[in-house]
């Protein structure tokens, strides 16, 4: 009985197991792959191809994978190591076959793989700089659209004065992943194609057609364009010679211009041809192998960050505790930048251009000026066209151009008095400087234009000076964006200026005078008065000022002026509101707007005299500032003519602040409406007399309060400001 029961149990186990096994089944292998990194895929000829580490990956029909080491169940068909070239190694296992390409090479240098053949850093930086960024200031504290160039479609410029290098970043590793040096200085050779672009057609250049345009160095992947190539566009394509690695070729399209290709910061020193700075730059240029200056221009091929080591040592105070310190270096000014030592000074006896290619010149790491001599602020510029701020040019300065450049300074809008020693952007006494499609940030003053005047030593140097700033953006300044000194013409077109620490634009009337008896101001004689003309067209200007910014603390009378204007604004708001309540056709307006919870001015421009106390100047005020929207004049500030005629008719205006709305009225006719504050109320100028506000002057009042801008005259003397007017803000109920 026991035996019978045992037999039945055994039968049941057997049957059950059979059923179980039959129902589940083994997964079927469906795919076989050789793990590429388990063996060398490149091997030297006549050497053993080691397969001991070979692994395969088996994929099953249930999706599972399994890695299997080399074993005796595999049938391997090896390559022939005595035969050069690419061969196929095969493995058969579990009824499946896998294959892998293996290359047999004759040189050890071929025992690696190029993993990366990437665009040079300058090319990706250039592509990034041309992106359009969106305004996200609502969610961050910074508007990223300020990083966007106005024109992002300009071609990539290369110069013809020295070779342009287009060498990709090559990353090569051996089978163990170790880096292998590959590129310039190794046995690398570029295979190059140069095509001439005409319209939308590309024609490959070969033979003399190629050499007439460019000399190519394949080992350095460099391109030395000839004069014949200037103003033409080419497409350059490079890849490794023979390219057994099958990396994709890289291309760049370039437009050739007259200029030196600047690949490093040291190359920027080629801009400086100032005869008085030759000795200053000599040591630096010699140390960096700079033997010639740029002739017609400089073309940037990368972002340039300036440090104190990139400028002449003599431009910085270097205090020696044990030395004579003949240049005035002290422990206090040690390491600071000397005043009026502009960095790159170009004497433009022939035209000169700076092609930024959207790259950046970053001067934020340069030291501040601490020793000012007779100056109030730092007077060092990154670029000086036509001499520098030290003196007027000795010869006529020809045309200059700065294009598609991003510049960064070290003087943000701030309270700190230290930043008055910050660096400035560009100064020019060129007959025609054009700044086009540039962005600049954090300069003491971004652009300064200085007139050229004849002197006894240079009687011929008396020519018209003009600066045109177009399609450019300036942000963040300790003082101002644009400064015009003397008899110059400045045109600003389609620009954006935000966050100046003082007036956005300032134009100074220069009064040249001398005392007939030395040190006796009562014998003063005015030799000459010079002023200029500034036109601001289609430009956003937003610099909201409280009058407590650093520039105001350092500029005599400025802070007090802002206080007066703020008080006047409050009065104007009340005045215009009362007029509207009295059913006069007036939009209540004021001179301030809410910025960060405080009422601030948008001080668009300032005309003033260079006399010691501009608010009380007795020299009168000349110069013109015009604001346009398209061709419509929105504001015209011409104090000289204004004062002459108005003060003659209403002499009491000399003693009171008054506001003038100019521009164009709704009928398209020139507009001029004046309101003055007589100490107790506002009055309107009509028919040569000041009258109280009433229905009789409704047209004048309506015209005044329809304007977007007003010119403010302070006590009829040496200062005239253009401010934006804002609708009175009605408090939320």
């Amino acid at each position, binding site marked *: 009985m026991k035996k019978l029961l045992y037999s039945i149990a055994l039968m049941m186990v057997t049957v059950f197991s059979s059923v179980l096994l039959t129902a589940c089944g083994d997964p079927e292998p469906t795919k076989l792959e050789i793990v590429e990194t388990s063996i060398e895929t490149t091997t030297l000829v006549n050497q053993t191809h080691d397969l001991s580490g070979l692994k395969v990956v088996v994929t099953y029909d249930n999706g599972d994978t399994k890695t299997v080491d080399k074993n005796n169940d595999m049938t391997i068909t090896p390559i022939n190591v005595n035969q050069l070239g690419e061969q196929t190694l095969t493995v058969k296992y579990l009824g499946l076959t896998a294959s892998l390409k293996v290359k047999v090479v004759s040189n050890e240098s071929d025992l690696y793989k190029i993993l990366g053949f990437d665009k040079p*850093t300058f090319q*990706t930086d250039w592509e990034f700089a041309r992106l359009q960024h969106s305004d996200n200031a609502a969610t961050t504290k910074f508007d990223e659209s300020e990083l966007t160039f106005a024109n992002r479609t300009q071609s990539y410029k290369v110069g013809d004065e020295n070779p342009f290098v287009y060498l990709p970043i090559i990353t090569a590793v051996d089978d163990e992943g170790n880096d292998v040096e590959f590129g310039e200085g190794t046995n690398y050779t570029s295979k190059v194609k140069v095509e001439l672009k005409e319209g939308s057609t590309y024609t490959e250049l070969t033979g003399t057609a190629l050499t007439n345009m460019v000399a190519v160095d394949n080992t350095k992947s460099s391109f030395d364009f000839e004069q014949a190539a200037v103003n033409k566009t080419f497409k350059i394509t490079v890849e490794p010679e023979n390219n057994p690695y099958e990396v994709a070729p890289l291309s760049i399209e370039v437009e050739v211009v007259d200029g030196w290709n600047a690949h490093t910061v040291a190359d920027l020193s080629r801009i400086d041809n100032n005869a008085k700075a030759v000795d200053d730059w000599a040591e630096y240029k010699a140390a960096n192998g700079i033997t010639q200056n740029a002739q017609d221009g400089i073309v940037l091929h990368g972002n340039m960050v300036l440090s104190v080591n990139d400028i002449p040592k003599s431009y910085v105070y270097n205090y020696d505790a044990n030395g004579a310190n003949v240049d005035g270096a002290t422990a206090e000014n040690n390491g600071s930048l000397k005043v009026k030592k502009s960095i790159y000074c170009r004497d433009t006896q022939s035209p000169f251009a700076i092609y930024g290619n959207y790259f*950046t010149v970053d001067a934020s790491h340069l030291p501040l000026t601490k020793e000012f001599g007779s100056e109030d602020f730092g007077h060092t510029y990154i670029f000086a066209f036509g001499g520098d701020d030290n003196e007027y040019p000795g010869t006529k300065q020809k045309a200059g151009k700065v294009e598609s450049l991003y510049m960064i300074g070290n003087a*943000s809008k701030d309270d700190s008095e230290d930043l008055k020693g910050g660096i400035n952007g560009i100064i020019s006494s060129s007959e025609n400087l054009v700044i086009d499609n540039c962005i600049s940030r954090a300069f003491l003053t971004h652009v300064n234009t200085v007139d050229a005047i004849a002197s006894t030593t240079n009687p011929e140097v008396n020519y018209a000076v003009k600066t045109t700033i177009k399609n450019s953006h300036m942000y963040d300044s300790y003082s101002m964006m644009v400064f015009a000194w003397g008899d110059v013409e400045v045109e600003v077109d389609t620009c954006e200026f935000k966050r100046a620490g003082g007036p956005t634009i300032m134009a100074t009337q220069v009064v040249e005078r001398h005392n007939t008896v030395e040190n006796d101001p009562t014998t003063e004689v005015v030799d000459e008065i010079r002023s200029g003309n500034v036109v601001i067209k289609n430009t956003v200007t937003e610099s909201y000022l409280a009058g*407590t910014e650093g520039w105001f603390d350092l500029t005599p009378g400025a802070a007090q002026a802002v*206080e007066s204007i703020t008080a006047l604004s409050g*009065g104007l708001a009340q005045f215009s509101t009362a007029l509207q309540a009295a059913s006069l056709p007036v939009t209540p307006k004021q001179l301030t707007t809410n910025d*960060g919870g405080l009422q*601030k001015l948008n001080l668009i421009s300032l005309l003033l005299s260079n006399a010691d106390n501009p608010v009380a100047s007795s020299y009168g005020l000349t110069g013109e500032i015009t604001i346009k929207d398209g061709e419509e004049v929105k504001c015209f500030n011409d104090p000289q003519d204004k004062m002459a005629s108005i003060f003659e008719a209403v002499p009491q205006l000399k003693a009171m602040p008054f506001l003038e709305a100019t521009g164009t009225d709704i009928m398209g006719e020139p507009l001029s409406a004046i309101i003055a504050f007589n*100490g107790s109320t506002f009055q309107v100028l009509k028919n040569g007399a000041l009258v109280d506000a009433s229905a009789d002057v409704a047209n004048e009042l309506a015209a005044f309060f329809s304007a977007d801008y007003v010119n403010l005259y302070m006590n009829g003397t040496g200062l005239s400001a253009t401010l934006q007017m804002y609708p009175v803000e009605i408090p939320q109920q």
Partner: protein
Amino acid sequence: MKKSVIVLIGIIYLASIFVVGFFGMKVKVYDTMVYITDIECTNEDVRKETNGNKTIKFKYDYEGTEDERILKNSKILTYEIFPKNTTLKGKDAVMAYADPDKVVSDIADRNDNTVAVVNDLTISFLKPGVLIVTLKSMDGSNISEVVKIIAY
């Protein structure tokens, strides 16, 4: 408007400045921009090469399904910005940029030249290759940190 009102406005304005000045509390009525001066990649496996370049290198793992390979061959870049009191902070402060010809944000858009899928700071290699990623400051300071990621 009465003269007394204007005078009162002026007095209050001036008095506030006096009070602030007397107590040494000069009120800063605007925000000064504190720019980024440095970005540093903080990945544990980042190495600084002798030429100054920063590199992250790893062996491409072929095993698994495509989704598993993508996961295994992914790197998340981390970084630190300096100084600590920059106006722009967090992920708004820095943007990761790579050659658009080599990356996609959606795997469905891949082509033969695509090396990786990139989403924010997560880089997922689709095959062995090299991706040069630039971490760029977005506050106008033009600071950048270049990291070369090599999957071999």
